[in-house]
């Protein structure tokens, strides 16, 4: 993919991280770790891969995105706002009474949200039903899902995994945000579903493992989906929890972040560093 395009997407990812900080400033706390680990995935989806129209959010032929790990809603709201589904001022209502952006997404409250998730292990079945409906209608629309790796311990995921394979839903493309941490500790110590690739393959899925912060890799792989005709595709995206915040990266305690003023200041500085790196990259691009 064109390096300028990638750089542009990386800037967008930075803006989405800034939107996440804006949400935390409004709500004072939130599930930031898993939101930050999936920023590149949602950036690639909402700014390159999904066939959507923010002007017509219920367009019947649109691709669907189901955030199965609903607690990662900060990244969904940030991406939708950045893409123009609603005014960014809505982000300042996070945590307020009757806000359109609750702590888990509600499709009836916000344009662009496709399902009400939050209880883990529901999204894959819902997405499978959407994919089945599109198959029945011979629609070209595809369905994308983002799950957490801790979420994979929900038995209902594996019901859906078997059914999606049995019904040959190759219009279903799933990401697992494998940041390897959940509330109680490392995922492999709490309840391991590793090796994920072998497990999913044995359920009849076509599996790839990528670096979930590599924009080029995310886009290139999704563009090749379905990886095998007649099989649902799953991308195991290796990520870093709280990616972008120097003090929080890979730390369990930032699954849910109640931000102190000092931490918020540091977070802003961290994103400035990323911005400077991108500017430098941009200058080099211009020179070459």
């Amino acid at each position, binding site marked *: 993919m064109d390096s300028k395009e990638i750089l542009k997407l990386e800037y967008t990812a930075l803006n989405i991280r800034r939107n996440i900080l804006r949400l935390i400033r409004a709500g004072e706390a939130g599930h930031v770790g898993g939101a930050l680990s999936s920023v590149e995935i949602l950036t690639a989806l909402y700014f390159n891969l999904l066939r959507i129209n923010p002007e017509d959010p219920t367009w019947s032929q649109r691709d669907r995105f189901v955030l199965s790990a609903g607690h990662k809603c900060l990244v969904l709201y940030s991406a939708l706002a950045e893409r123009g589904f609603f005014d960014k001022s809505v982000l300042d209502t996070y945590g307020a009474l009757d806000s359109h952006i609750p702590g888990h997404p*509600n499709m009836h409250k916000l344009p662009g949200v496709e399902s009400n998730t939050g*209880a883990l292990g529901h999204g894959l*079945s819902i997405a499978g039903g959407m994919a*089945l409906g599109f198959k029945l209608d011979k629609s070209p629309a595809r*369905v994308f899902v983002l799950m957490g790796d801790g979420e994979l311990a929900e038995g209902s995921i594996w019901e859906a995994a078997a*059914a999606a394979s049995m019904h040959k839903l190759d219009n279903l493309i799933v990401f697992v945000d494998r940041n390897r941490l959940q509330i109680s500790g490392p995922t492999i110590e709490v309840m391991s579903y590793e090796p994920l690739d072998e497990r999913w393959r044995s359920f009849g899925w076509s599996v790839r493992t990528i670096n979930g912060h590599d924009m080029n890799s995310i886009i290139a792989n999704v563009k090749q989906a379905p990886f095998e005709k007649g099989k649902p595709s799953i991308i195991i995206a290796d990520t870093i929890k709280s990616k972008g915040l120097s003090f929080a990266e890979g730390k369990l305690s930032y699954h849910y972040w109640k931000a102190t003023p000092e931490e918020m200041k540091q977070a802003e500085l961290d994103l400035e560093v990323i911005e400077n790196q991108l500017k430098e990259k941009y200058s080099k691009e211009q020179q070459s």
Partner: protein
Amino acid sequence: MNELIDPRKAFGEAVIEAAQKNPNVVVLSADSSSGSGLANFPKLFPERHFEFGIMEQGVIGFASGLATTGKIPVFAAIAPFVTARPFEMFKNDLGYMNQNVKVVGRCAGLTYDQLGSTHHSIDDVALIRTIPGVMILSPGDPVTIKKSVHAMISHTGPCYLKIGNPKMPVLYPEDIDFQPGKGIVMQEGKDVALIGTGTVLSKAVGAAKLLEQKGISVRLIDMHTLKPVDRELILKAAREIGKIVTVEEHFIAGGLGSIVAEICSQEFPARIKMIGIGDFFASNGPYEQLLMKYGLQPDQICETIIRFLNTE
């Protein structure tokens, strides 16, 4: 003697009629279509029948997703496995998402008699009515089962329909005026209002006959829709008669009796007797004997009502 018809046969025929009229009707099976009176559906509509095997939680989610694409999924299986087991999926994926899915609990109540408490469904109304926006239909004869199917397909939004298993008597003519949310006054009366629902409606009908023979005038009401319930009809009975007896094949906690009591206690207090299952797991055995064990046979209902009327 009224004709006896398998409720699942009536249900299955009505779904096929509905599917012939509406191309969006699809059927989902958790290894359950053939046992739900839908054995012919995949033969007639192979493209619109989806088998999932025994995974009721997942099926509810798939049904929700299908509904977002404009389909009208009908999912029928053994009642506890589409209500208690996948309750959170019912609540979130159908209720909270407000999806146009029709869940059908068959062999409800005690009708899976000797199979025991895992297969009885005497808590489904209590559970599902806590979910905002879900219509609950509990028809009491084969004619109204068919009408319930057409009503739930016409209604936009999540529905739960419960039906039984043994053959049941036809209580209504084919042209009965059936409207969801409107109870049917089967017989006028002034001494007591007897409200029945679902699988034991026919037992309430039998009890009303016995009471009439004893000179007790009964207003007999078929409450085939438990949500939204016919508040006006209940309050009218409270105002005009003041004595109400409810009959249901369900826990007393949370079912028809509770619904009636919630409304009357707040809006027009009446004396209420609730006939149903107490706070215990029901036993196992032949269906009619089980009903007798829990006081749900017509002569027992009649006796209970006489005692109720005599203890003012």
